[in-house]
């Protein structure tokens, strides 16, 4: 791809604008738009081929965002809560596609809870972003299942039920990559998105993403202000692409270098006490502890050492996508056909 303009291109020769999408129609200041920006940036920096990108979503403000990035990629805005199943089909059909599913807390933690849980269990190679604002934005601000007990809605109602912690849930369900970010913390977000893309398996990214219209008031526990006050970084992440200079000066105990299957690395530096993101049990512990303290823990919370992704587990061919299978691939030969029927005689 030749660049006649002066616009910067990435290693694959794509321009930043190749990763842009349509103008957002979300509210000004909506957290979701910040996430979109980081997704664009990550894909650009990683040099993902835009036409291989498949963007899926359910229904909600969050689920609209796939239209706002990588316009050269293919999108499906499915029905409410069913992003995971659409994504599963697309990726199994064509393993070459680079799939990212965007969902909301209503979309994934309420109506889509079943698909969320089973997506995590399946470990399809995909990025699964939950843009988590504690409310149903698009239907005007009802509480979602990630709203904390006692949180007050804009209209003053108090939430009677405790919140569902999607990270703890994903880890419990055997998730292989579980992280939490904050829409308004671009540095962390960018590393997280890149690592999510590089991870082979389902990368679950629970991003606290304030709804400035319906959940940004004082008594909210998901307002920009509240999250900024309570955001605790579990670790700092450095993402090193395969072509980038590896970090070599890691002193033992200071950081952990996690190599990913595609040749990239994540360098994880614990912020507080030492923490090994390979330790499932420690992960559940820090989540539970931060929960008790009322903190919002962000960072890479858990990454499995090695788990087969779903295409591998299901033995989908790796040389050609199923979409290309033709008559010869699909039909048994004439003799086998006749033998098969003879067997029913």
């Amino acid at each position, binding site marked *: 791809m030749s660049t006649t303009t002066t616009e910067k291109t990435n290693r694959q020769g794509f321009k930043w604008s190749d990763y842009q999408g349509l103008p957002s129609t979300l509210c000004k200041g909506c957290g979701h738009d910040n996430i979109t920006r980081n997704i664009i940036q990550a894909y650009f920096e990683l040099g993902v081929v*835009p036409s291989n990108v498949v963007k899926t979503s359910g229904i909600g403000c969050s689920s609209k965002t796939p239209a706002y990035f990588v316009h050269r990629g293919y999108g499906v805005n499915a029905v409410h809560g069913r992003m995971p199943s659409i994504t599963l089909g697309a990726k199994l059909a064509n393993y070459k596609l680079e799939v990212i599913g965007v969902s909301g807390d209503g979309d994934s933690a309420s109506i889509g809870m079943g698909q969320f849980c089973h997506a995590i269990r399946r470990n399809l190679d995909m990025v699964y972003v939950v843009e988590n604002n504690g409310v149903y934005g698009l239907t005007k601000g009802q509480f979602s299942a990630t709203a904390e007990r006692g949180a007050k809605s804009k209209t003053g109602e108090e939430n009677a039920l405790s919140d569902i912690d999607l990270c703890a849930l994903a880890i419990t369900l055997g998730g292989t990559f579980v992280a939490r970010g904050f829409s308004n913390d671009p540095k962390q977000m960018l590393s997280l998105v890149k690592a999510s893309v590089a991870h082979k398996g389902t990368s679950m990214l629970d991003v606290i993403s304030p709804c400035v219209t319906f959940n940004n008031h004082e008594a909210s526990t998901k307002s920009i202000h509240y999250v900024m006050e309570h955001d605790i970084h579990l670790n700092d992440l450095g993402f090193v692409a395969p072509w980038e200079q590896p970090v070599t000066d890691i002193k033992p105990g200071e950081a952990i270098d996690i190599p990913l299957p595609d040749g990239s690395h994540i360098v994880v530096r614990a912020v507080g006490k030492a923490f090994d993101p390979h330790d499932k049990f420690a992960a559940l512990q820090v989540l539970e502890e931060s929960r008790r303290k009322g903190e919002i823990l962000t960072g890479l919370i858990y990454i499995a050492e090695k788990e087969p992704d779903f295409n591998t587990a*299901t033995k989908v061919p790796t040389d050609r996508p199923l979409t290309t299978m033709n*008559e010869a691939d699909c*039909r*048994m030969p004439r003799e086998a056909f006749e033998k098969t029927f003879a067997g029913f005689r």
Partner: protein
Amino acid sequence: MNPPETLTRPQTQKETRVTVNDLSIEVATVNGTGSQSANNIFAKSLFRMGIPISAKNLFPSNIQGLPTWFTIRVNKNGYTARKKELDWLVGMNAATWEKDVANLRPGAVVMWNSNELPEAPVNARGDLIAYPVPMADLLKPVQADAKLKKMLINMVYVGACAQLLGIEEAVVLQAIKDNFKSKQKAVEVNVQCFHAGMNYAKEKLEKRDPWRVERMDANGKKVLIEGNTIAALGALMGGATVVGWYPITPSSSLAEALIAFAKKHRVNADGTVRFVDVQCEDELASIGMVLGAGWAGARAMTTTAGPGISLMSEFIGFGYYAEIPAVIFDVQRVGPSTGLPTRTAQGDVRMAAWCSHGDTQHLVLHPGGPEECFDFARISFDLAEQFQTPVFVMLDLDLGMNFWMAEPPAYPTDAFKRGKVLTPEQLDQIKASGKKWGRYLDADGDGVPWRALPGNPHPDAAYFTRGSGHDEYARYTEDPEAYRLNMDRLKKKTETARAALPRPVLESVPGARIGIIAYGSTNNAMREARDQLVEHGLKTDYLRLRATPLPMAELEAFLKSHDRVYVVEQNRDGQMETLIRAEVRTPGLTEKLRGVRYYTGYPIDARSISDGIRNQERGA
């Protein structure tokens, strides 16, 4: 009926009439007792003697211990529907014994395990031909544990029946061998038990019934197969590569057969399989996955039954509106709700046609027999991709899970019709010609747009698919005119598809003023029913529908050329009749319609049809 004096003991006078190759056998047993292989051998043997048969399993919605009836219909004319009247009962189940005997028609045979079931009910009737067989005693010499014996006992009645009916021993022995394949030990004990029954009958039972079977040559190269199995083969040959499913009776065996065939016939050298199946967490996930795969460009399908379709409704509407190919096998069972999960019905016809909220019209195929299960399974993928929409293939429990004779299909050599898919080169050409492609643009005037598949790198190819309002270029819109135009185009697309669906099959005789319309498994009773009607002096023509949206020209012509037209179906509400009434516009036609509806969960029998028509004709 039976005169009082015969109440003590079944009559013993020898029958002099002989009825060859025409009887209906029922084995009344208990599920989970392993009668299945014996019964399959029983049926297979008759079939291999070249006699037309069909075999049906009437089983309960549980796993073990409840009544099950296996019926074999032997009929030289090739009538394969369930027969209302039973000729030959094998009683093995104490729980149903009295009722089973009571249900028999006078003069019928009853054979039973006399070690377990009392003779009294048989004697009470006095009009039956009784063949008590001490099956447990006969099993005594057999070396096997109690559990195995429970299964082997079934081979005893196969032997006794074979002897009495004249089933060729060699044929049965071969069927036993084929059934147990390499398991030599199993073959041996089964043969032993078979012989025990055979010999007992030979030595101890005097044949007093009129029924005989004799070798025929009616079956040619035919196979004996379940509709689900042959549909699975159709799907395999039709190029299904992705299946997302959730188990539900009576559809599970379709998916399971397909998976087994794929594991055999789609394996690459490196162990990968040119096929993927996911047993999903539910039906919403199944259809979502199938739509995802269809969207990405794979031939994808799901299998389910009524409750699954209800759950898929939202997604099916999405498939219609976003225009995504998908194949949905609905193996119908009795509704509403959970209904009778192991019984048959044609109860989802209306729902399939109009599934989901808003204005939708779906393409629905109704195979009328096993051959069409294969064909329609196969072409459903062509139709789905050609018209970029969900396609239903409607089987039912009777068609799907029972054994049918079928002509083996010709090896398919035609190319897959993959519909309007644009390559990068074609996109270049469009661009060069100064035109602009639009995902939902009616470029050809047939309502069917072109699509590009995800991954297509052409700069004009990418688009965004959504279930919300969109214009010709797949851009989000709430514009009223854009919405209306798109809906009109979708309707046009359906009209284009209507013309491409399998045409109805007309069977006519000169001078018939009465027409019959039927579809799906009801077809299997139709020849017999029409023959019965001829016996009663009623000539009928028969239009078999094979798909909806309906073939309006053929349908209206049929209505025009008959005085009264009976729509025969296996549901209460006349669902196909409703579809017909909804669409027929020519004045004076719908008033010719009458319904014959059968809805008990049992497969429809010919007599219910011919009686249903005769009763109404009397009133007409």
